């Protein structure tokens, strides 16, 4: 795979960041990222959302949770998604290129905390996938042992467990009433996780789709 990003006479803004997952179909750029511009109309779709900004926050549960989000929940705020990934850890997902702004915003909000708080940009350390469509739950159930029923895992909930044996954060984040899951894991497991989900979705006619207009 060529690694040089120079092409033609250099008049096009070249991407400097790539997901570890080989792009499905044709590619384009979004901010500094190379992203897939494929478009699938399948009832079940898998997209690589790694170009999203990702910020990890750690701090004392009692002080930080009321200001960000409860553990096992996810909350949307100003075009970003705040996920409670553990009793004392949070992950903020935002549109690409926004990690500095998001980190700033979170840091200033938590400035009053007396316990140690850390805010770290982990954009380039992890991958984000989105599995959406009617049979998303059934496909995910094949590779994850958690109860995904609406009662146990309703829209707006999150958990950390194994997905296809890979430790991941899963957020139930429906899009316009369409069941949808965001799955976040370490970058090094990205391709494997993507392939495993594509494989699990095969029987439901899964389609690989590109980075969407509406990012988060």
């Amino acid at each position: 795979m060529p690694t040089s990003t120079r092409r033609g006479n250099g008049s096009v803004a070249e991407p400097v960041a790539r997901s570890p997952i080989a792009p499905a179909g044709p590619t384009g750029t979004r901010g500094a990222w190379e992203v897939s511009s494929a478009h699938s109309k399948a009832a079940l779709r898998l997209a690589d959302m790694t170009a999203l900004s990702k910020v990890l926050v750690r701090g004392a549960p009692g002080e930080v949770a009321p200001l960000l989000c409860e553990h096992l929940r996810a909350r949307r705020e100003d075009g970003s998604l705040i996920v409670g990934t553990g009793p004392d850890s949070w992950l903020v997902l935002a549109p690409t290129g926004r990690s500095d702004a998001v980190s700033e915003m979170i840091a200033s909000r938590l400035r009053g905390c007396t316990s140690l708080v850390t805010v770290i940009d982990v954009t380039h350390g992890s991958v984000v996938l989105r599995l959406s469509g009617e049979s998303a739950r059934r496909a995910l159930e094949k590779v994850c042992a958690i109860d995904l029923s609406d009662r146990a895992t309703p829209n707006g909930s999150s958990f950390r467990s194994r997905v296809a044996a890979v430790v991941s954060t899963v957020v139930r984040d429906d899009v316009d009433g369409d069941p949808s899951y965001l799955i976040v894991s370490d970058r090094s497991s990205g391709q494997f996780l993507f392939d495993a989900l594509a494989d699990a979705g095969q029987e439901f006619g899964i389609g690989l789709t590109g980075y969407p207009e509406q990012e988060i």
Partner: protein
Amino acid sequence: MIRIPCPHCGPRNSDEFSYIGEEKRRPGPDTSPTEWRTYLYSKSNPAGWTTEQWFHAAGCGKFIVAERHTVTNEVRATRPKPRFERSNAGAEAGGGSS
């Protein structure tokens, strides 16, 4: 496979956790070598209820305390592990966020 109700995450398969060991109090720095080795090596290893630590590696990433029956493998109670327990009064529970 047994199921362990994580106090932070809810019921999970035991393969999400790493077994750490029996609950023991760590002696302070002024302990004798013999006392220190007893702490390191001796195990009560009961056939029955025991209190032990597990680490929720594939979940919340927290250490927890579980009461488990070593014959039936039933887990009857779990709770978060308090931070930095020491037997000597001098070493107070330490700070740090995680």
